């Protein structure tokens, strides 16, 4: 889930960087099979999600019934549709809409991309054991047009030689909800019925029926599909694009929806677990073709054999009728001839006969010509049919290939076990297979050099770590244009003199830029020493761009992570140093007090002894005591000086940035706790001149203390608020307030002392260090606390005054102003 989120983020970033901001209205037609309001509440979150994930577009939904859907698609009033499987196939054959995704329907808490129908009877119907036993029985379904509610079952029945409209004693359509059918069968009102898969299980779960009361006819088993079903399984609702919708937009929408988390609001509202790559809807087509229930005006998709099977008897009838007509015509002609002969008498008998013979011959010629024409027409039709079949096979092949490539792509990128490098390796291999090219490489472009970051080259042509002059590669073209480049054969193209061909023998090339934070990082490219037979298709380009986009997104994410890690390490380092310095300071301070007292006492003694002419020997010893105590003081001083040598980096700092960095770190620590962090910022905040890391450390100390304080309370009001504001004339204050137990008033004086702590495992350094840092920045820090109601710790820093804080004066003051 985390992966999906970050992939989505990266993609969204990439996409955001590429698109010029202009909001285009995009409409998704959704089938409102349970009314407009339900459709709106189911799909509006998806539209909102898409509007956010695909910047530059304002995406809305348009609930439609079946008739309105047909009209909207016909007039291209929508850009995408979400509709049921049956309707989709209908629209696909009529208007050429194409699916880009399939819904992961959430059924009993789990996602399923396929569904079917179940044909059932009462368990005590001993005479009905299989589908054939249904002949002469009564049967109930949803409606003639219901895909899951009737047509799936119809197909299975037809496969068992049962025509539901002829062979049943009675066929009743009950409409929605399907529960009515189940109840009717249970009460014995009808002998059998059919409903969508999981209806029976759901009703049993809701306690409306008991499964043991029913028997499933023609039961089937499908791996990974736990529900009872009697029919083949068909894909769930698709998300489809219309013909006019651009492929680029469709791809972006598809990527956004593919990465929609299963537990997101959009997925839950749609009662789904998100979307997946589109399934094969060919079985649905087959169903309709077989049942002939939808307008499939594309006979061309049937094979000649099927045509004969389907329409053979019509051909026979037509031919018989034709022969019959010829016979009748001949008979009439002959009869009329006889009448003519009897009318004309015998005087011109010979002439007349010759004339008649001529006429007959002419008739015969006409007939022969018509038969020949007809034969030619049929031959032509046959040829066209065959060509259509070939074209369709090809198209299906391409579709299957791109689908499998997308599926592989998805599998690789979403794998949890593979490292980034392994994933890139797998992508390169997949790319080589899919594009039919021998070498794949991810390159990094730095100045004029093209570094091979990672390579897949079974022939060993290149390896990771190789460097090439950029101008020698086609990658130069790709990085310059920031667009994909496909050269199936260099010969005859504009690149026939390019060094990548003349020097490196790359005759086919296919590459796309890899963008990180909107800048060209390098390229993802595939190439071969042999020309490619076919040019690259739109789908190929889409797959390549998708790969390059994913790699760019991942690189961006890892860079950002590395930066965050480095920052944390730096902070931890400073924290360690400060702790050490603070401890040394603390010890020095504690020891200094008694040492001062020793020195004072002994000096006083020496003076008085001198005045009273005391024992010279004792005076001498007392002086030595003084000297030793002073020496101890010097040692402490040296230790302190040593620890103090940390570098300070003063800069102009915005305290809002400091607080933001810290709250983000803190949020990751309390992600599973119910603590609400709130940051309030005054407008018109002055900047300060300070060491940013040290200030972060102070805020982090305060926030950690606050979180610890809140953790000790189990109250509902668990709130940590940070207020950054202007105070006095020119000061900035940061107030950290928690809802913990507060600090007893007698402890309030001590909390800034080194080694003072109220925590069981505390060191007592945090606030002490914080005070040192704030005071080294000419600020002050103090505490307000109301026992039982929480604590507020506030620090105030002077605003940055450019005239006062030039770098030189700070550098000069540094040894005095810091403790590190």
């Amino acid at each position, binding site marked *: 889930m985390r992966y999906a989120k970050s992939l989505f983020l990266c993609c969204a970033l990439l996409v955001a960087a590429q698109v010029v901001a202009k909001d285009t209205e995009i409409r998704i037609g959704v089938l409102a099979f349970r009314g407009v309001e339900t459709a709106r509440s189911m799909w509006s979150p998806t539209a909102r999600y898409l509007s956010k994930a695909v910047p530059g577009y304002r995406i809305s939904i348009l609930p439609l019934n079946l008739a309105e859907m047909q009209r909207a698609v016909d007039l291209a009033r929508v850009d995408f549709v979400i509709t049921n499987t049956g309707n989709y196939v209908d629209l696909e054959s009529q208007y050429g809409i194409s699916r880009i995704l399939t819904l992961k329907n959430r059924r009993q808490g789990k996602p399923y991309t396929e569904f079917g129908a179940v044909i059932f009877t009462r368990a005590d119907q001993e005479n009905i054991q299989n589908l054939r036993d249904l002949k002469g029985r009564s049967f109930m379904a949803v409606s003639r047009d219901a895909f899951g509610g009737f047509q799936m079952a119809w197909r299975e029945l037809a496969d068992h030689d049962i025509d539901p409209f002829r062979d049943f004693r009675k066929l009743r359509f009950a409409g929605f909800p399907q529960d009515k059918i189940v109840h009717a069968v249970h009460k014995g009102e009808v002998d059998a019925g059919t409903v969508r898969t999981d209806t029976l299980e759901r009703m049993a779960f809701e306690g409306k029926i008991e499964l043991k009361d029913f028997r499933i006819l023609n039961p089937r088993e499908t791996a990974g599909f736990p529900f009872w079903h009697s029919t083949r399984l068909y894909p769930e609702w698709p998300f489809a694009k219309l013909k006019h919708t651009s492929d680029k937009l469709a791809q972006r929408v598809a990527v956004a929806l593919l990465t929609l988390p299963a537990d997101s609001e959009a997925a839950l509202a749609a009662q789904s677990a998100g979307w997946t790559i589109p399934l094969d809807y060919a079985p649905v087509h087959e169903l309709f073709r077989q049942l002939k229930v939808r307008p499939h005006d594309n006979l061309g998709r049937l094979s000649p054999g099927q045509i004969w099977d389907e329409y053979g008897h019509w051909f026979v009838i037509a031919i018989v009728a034709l022969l019959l007509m010829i016979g009748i015509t001949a008979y009439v002609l002959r009869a009329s001839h006889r009448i003519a002969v009897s009318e004309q008498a015998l005087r011109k008998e010979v002439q007349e006969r010759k004339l008649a013979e001529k006429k007959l011959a002419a008739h015969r010629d006409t007939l022969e010509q018509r038969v020949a024409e007809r034969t030619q027409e049929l031959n032509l039709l046959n040829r066209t049919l065959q060509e259509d079949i070939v074209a369709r096979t090809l198209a299906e092949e391409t579709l299957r290939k791109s689908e499998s490539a997308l599926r592989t792509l998805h599998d690789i990128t979403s794998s949890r076990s593979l490292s980034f490098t392994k994933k890139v390796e797998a992508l390169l291999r997949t790319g080589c297979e899919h594009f039919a090219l021998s070498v794949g490489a991810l390159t990094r472009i730095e100045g004029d050099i093209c570094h091979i970051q990672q390579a897949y080259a079974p022939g060993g042509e290149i390896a990771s770590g190789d460097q090439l002059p950029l101008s020698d590669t086609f990658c130069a073209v790709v990085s310059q244009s920031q667009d994909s480049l496909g050269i199936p054969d260099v010969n005859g193209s504009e690149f026939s003199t390019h060094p990548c061909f003349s020097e490196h023998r790359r005759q086919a090339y296919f590459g796309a830029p890899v963008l990180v934070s909107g800048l060209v990082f390098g390229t993802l490219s595939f190439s071969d020493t042999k020309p490619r037979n076919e040019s690259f298709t739109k789908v190929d380009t889409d797959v390549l761009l998708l790969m390059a986009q994913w790699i760019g997104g991942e690189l961006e994410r890892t860079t950002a992570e590395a930066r965050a890690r480095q920052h944390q390490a730096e902070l931890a380092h400073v924290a360690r140093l400060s702790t050490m310095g603070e401890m040394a300071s603390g010890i020095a301070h504690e020891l200094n007090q008694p*040492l001062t007292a020793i020195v*004072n006492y002994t000096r006083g003694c020496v003076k008085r002894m001198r005045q009273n002419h005391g024992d010279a020997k004792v005076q001498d010893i007392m002086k030595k005591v003084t000297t030793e105590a*002073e020496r101890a003081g010097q040692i402490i001083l040296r230790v*302190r000086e040593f620890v103090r040598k940390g570098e300070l980096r003063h800069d102009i700092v915005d305290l809002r940035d400091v607080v933001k960095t810290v709250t983000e770190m803190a949020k990751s620590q309390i992600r599973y706790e119910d603590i609400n962090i709130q940051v309030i910022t005054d407008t018109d905040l002055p900047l300060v001149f300070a060491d940013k890391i040290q200030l972060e450390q102070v805020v982090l100390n305060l926030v950690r203390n606050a979180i610890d304080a809140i953790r000790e309370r189990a109250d509902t009001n668990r709130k940590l608020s940070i207020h950054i504001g202007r105070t006095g004339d020119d000061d900035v204050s940061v107030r950290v307030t928690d809802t913990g137990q507060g600090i007893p008033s007698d402890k309030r004086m001590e909390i800034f002392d080194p080694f003072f702590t109220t925590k069981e495992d505390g060191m007592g350094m945090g606030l002490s260090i914080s005070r040192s840092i704030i005071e*080294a920045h000419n600020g002050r820090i103090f505490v307000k606390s109301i026992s039982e109601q929480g604590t507020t710790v506030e620090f105030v820093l002077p605003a940055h005054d450019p005239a006062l804080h030039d770098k030189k004066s700070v550098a000069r003051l540094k040894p005095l102003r810091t403790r590190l």
Partner: protein
Amino acid sequence: MNNGPTVYIVDDDPSVRDSLSWLLESENLATSIFASAEEFLDAYHHEWNGCITLDVRMPGMNGLELQEQLDQRGNSLPIIIITAHADVPMAIRAMKAGAFDFIEKPFLDEQLLNCLRRAIKAGGRARREQDQRLEIEQRYATLTPRERQVMQMVVAGKANKVIAADLELSSKTIEAHRSRIMSKMKARSLSALVRMAMMIEPV
């Protein structure tokens, strides 16, 4: 309290203040010790004489805040800030706010004593000046409004005739005012009068 110079020690650490008191008394310096700024403020009297040593870092009111409070009460006692190593920035702030000096703990014998002696001396001088100023102010208070007016013009260097013309009075009257001013202010010469005027009201 006594009338001789006293070192007022304010320090929250009992052994430090006790030992310091012991050391200073060995040098025949009178001391008076306080465990907190609050305690000191309760006892404070503006006629005290000597100097104050203040520990910067104390629970409750810290040294700097005490310094501020004393300032508001018109304190003239020099303040010596005693700091632990870490409080250098605070010491600098104290100096800017008018502290006499600051000393880091643990301090060297002679350094501390020298500093104290200089402070006491400066404190004495300041005190004398203050006494003097008080006296002059008391004399000035006995002048009539007209006499004050004439005195301001005399001090500004104007001749009797000019003053007479400005105030539309006779020179004789001015002369009379002038001799009364000199005797009331106990000024033996014009320059002495000018000095007095500068002390009570810096021009």
